């Protein structure tokens, strides 16, 4: 099993005490599987994604990636996990503004020591970024920036791709193209894809859909 989430709880401090966000989530994903996570704002979709990616720690419950309990890892262990096994695509792109497009794409792969220049170059071509490699993120359009963010994630060939509204800032046509590419490339690398989305249209293109409501799977 690529991912196993068991009885996951998470709350955040609120004005009247802890505010529960996740109230006992269980889910499993196999390698190569694609899963859409839908739900209303505040239902806990992004929080679940962050916990699965080792970006935050749960109050209770476990997240196991390839059998490794993320909660048992220290800060450095979780950082290594993010570097080597997980790739995250954010809605806000979150590229590194001081690096060129080429450096941004290869950044995570080089961090993890898994860079494959041939694969990186192929990715850039397939994402339509071959002419943009020397530019800086601020010189690109929103769609181009998101493609760079996806290329960055896929260049490291992660076991699990986490995408938080990756097309939320894009128009419909561009969003469709970007998702198609993600699905195609995830399938090629046999990576699992867990995507948070508000769009039922996009969710329908994923292998499976989970709907979150008030911190629980509906």
């Amino acid at each position, binding site marked *: 099993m690529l991912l196993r989430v068991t009885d996951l709880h998470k709350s*955040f401090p609120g004005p009247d005490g802890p505010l529960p966000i996740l109230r006992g989530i269980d889910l499993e994903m196999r390698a190569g599987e694609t899963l859409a996570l839908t739900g209303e*704002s505040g239902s806990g979709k*992004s929080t679940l994604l*962050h916990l699965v*990616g080792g*970006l*935050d*720690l749960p109050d209770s419950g476990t997240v196991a990636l390839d059998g490794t309990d993320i909660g048992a890892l220290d*800060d*450095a262990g979780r*950082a*290594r*996990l*993010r*570097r*080597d096994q997980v790739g*995250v695509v*954010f*809605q*806000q792109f*979150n*590229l*590194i*503004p*001081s*690096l060129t497009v080429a*450096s941004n794409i*290869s*950044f*995570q792969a*080089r*961090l*993890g020591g898994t860079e494959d220049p041939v694969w990186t170059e192929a990715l850039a071509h397939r994402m339509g970024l071959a002419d943009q490699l020397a530019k800086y993120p601020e010189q690109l359009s929103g769609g181009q920036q998101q493609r760079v963010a996806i290329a*960055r994630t896929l260049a490291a060939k992660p076991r699990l791709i986490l995408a*938080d*509204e990756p097309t*939320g800032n894009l128009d419909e046509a561009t969003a469709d193209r970007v998702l198609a590419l993600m699905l195609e490339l995830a399938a090629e690398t046999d990576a699992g894809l867990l995507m948070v989305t508000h769009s039922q249209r996009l969710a329908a293109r994923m292998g499976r859909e989970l709907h979150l409501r008030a911190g629980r799977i509906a």
Partner: protein
Amino acid sequence: MTRAGLQALLSHWRRNPLQLFTLVVGLSLATALWSGVQAVNAEARASYDAAAETLGEGRYAQITAPGGVIPQDRYIALRRAGWRVSPVLEGRLDGVRVVGFDPLTAPNGFGPVDLSDNALTLDVLLNGVLFGTAEALNRLGAPDVARVVSAQVAPSMVLTDVGTAQELLQADGQLSRLIVLPEQPIRQRALAEVAPDLTLRAPQTGGDVAQLTDSFHLNLTAFGLLSFAVGIFIVHGAIGLAFEQRRPVIRTLRALGFPLRRLIALIAAELLVISLLAGTIGVGLGYVVAAALLPDVAATLDGLYGASISGTLQLRPDWWLSGLAIAVGGTALAATSSLWQLAQMPLLASARPRAWAMQSGARRLWQAGAAAGLLGLAVALSLVGGSLLLGFAMLAALLIGAALALPVILDRVLAFGAARARSVMAEWFWADTRQQLPGLSLALMALLLAMAANVGVSTMVSSFRLTFTGFLDQRLASELYVYADDAEQAAALAAYLAPRVDQVLPIQSVDQQVAGLPAEIHGPAAHETYRAHWLFLQEAPDAWPRIEAGQGAAINEQLARRGGLSIGDEITVADRRLPVLGIYGDYGNPIGQVLVTATLFAELFPAVRAERFGLRMEAGDVSALAEDLRDDFGLAEDNMIDQAQLKAFSLEVFDRTFTVTAALNVLTLAVAGFAILMSLLTLATMRLPQLAPVWAQGLTRARLGRIEILRAVLLALLTAVLALPLGLALAWTLLAVVNVEAFGWRLPMFLFPLDYARLTVFAVLAAVLAALWPARKLSRTRPSELLKVFSNER
């Protein structure tokens, strides 16, 4: 409407208290350093003014005697010959300068009070009243003389009538000088006829205390200004950031119909209140700084120039008002560009704050051009030279030009580093550091200026000290110096000492005008001591043999520079024309000096007899001889100074001179450290969106924190590397331009690599300390804070 607008604007400071703190502290520190220095200067100048008012020093021509003492009968003879002169007797008693004058013949305005008051004049004449500050009068142990406390009399000085002064100083029938009144009868006998042994000195224009000390105060003012500039960098940064962050509020206010003019007025009023608050704190801190510095400044001026200044500080209204004015002016200066941008900003300009840290290429180009222009101007001024003002203008152009050039140079260096980076971390590190540069550049400029000032001043002081120590070793060659009380004792002493020491070197001098300038004429005996120790900066062939043969004279550098004299030029000493055969360094002497051999001196000034002697002898025998002189001759302790004592005293005076500049150096560096800390703290909050993706991709927060420290070290090191040549250029300007114009001599420049290495370590430590807090904050940032960066609902 105004209230609502103000509420919206002020809410920014509530949400960003650190920024408000930075602004207030930066401005307070800048004002404190500036007003502290100004307070010291104002206090010193007030003391000089009191002295000048009291004594009319420098305003009148004077008649003096070569040996310093004018017999009273000469005064009477001159009065009878039609000379309108007034007698003055000066001496020291209990560490107080006692000045006796004649209230009836003294020129108007001479004295502590209005002497047209007849009753008071009579009182002075009949009862011998002492005038002085309470402190000076208390120190004076003289009995049975009435005392009047007068704030008009200079510190450490007491004024009285000449008869009382003669009594107090046990100088019956003696006078020190005669003041020549401006209006003289048309017919009067020539001075040479009535009193051929006396010399007439024109009113001094270049040698009075105020002018001598002007350069010292100018140095202090320059340092105050430099510190203020460093502080204003902080203020400019804080104001600029506040404007950037308030752009959305400003746009919204304008979109809702708030008039632009009122908006600008509100922001200007807000800044005025902040600057007055910070100015008040700064003036208070400045008072503390001044109170701490004043004793050393007083000691320096007394030791170096013989100028007494009050050791206590007064709160003068013009001083604290000018402190507040400079705080408001500095804020206005720092806010001008932001206010201008606000006035020009289109209503529909982006509501998002621009990336504050980003800087356009056009602006960088403009900055590079301005830097090149100013540095070119500095070079041009160094070639033109010619006045103290130009020297300081050159310093200003050099420092501002270098500060503007710093971000441009650092950007190029970082781009070079990025181009050569191999690992991904190195590549990101260089590129990210380059991106942070505009946000840190003001703080780095402040560090550059502070470090350059440190390098420059420490090079100047250490060069000065090295030269001065060598100079003292040369000049104070005699093992013991003996002073006789009068000519009779001098003759007896010479005979007593001759068989007991290797050589008795008489020291004799007279004061005379040479080349139109006040100068001392010295007549040392021809001896190996002088040949070996008085090293010439420039000399004619066979200079010493010719001087010893009475064929010419040597002059000090001050006289050569001020009189425009060089080797081979002729000077007139007591009506004898003598060629200049040598020019020697004479560090610390405010006036000119001429050296002729003793034989020639005796010919030119037959009335003068040496009353001081330098004794060449075994150093080990000095104490025994001093003991003998006390026992056999009754010579007082004050009449004997051994070489070591004299050197120690001279070095003590020297070291005190630069205590103040050292203190200002440390304060300036501290302010620069504060600027870095505040910039890093401000950037730390703005940098989360840049750092969060790197963290998300697998770098720990601790590692990111360590990288932040490394970045601060790198930038401090690069700045230090650039500060070194700038500091050396500053030192060169101080030594070769400012010093020459201010004091009349040029000092050789030495390099002190160990000092520079130590300073670099301090600067890096300051940067590490400044980076520690933000780095620690970053390494402890909760993941939830970092995750907010990725939040869709952000």
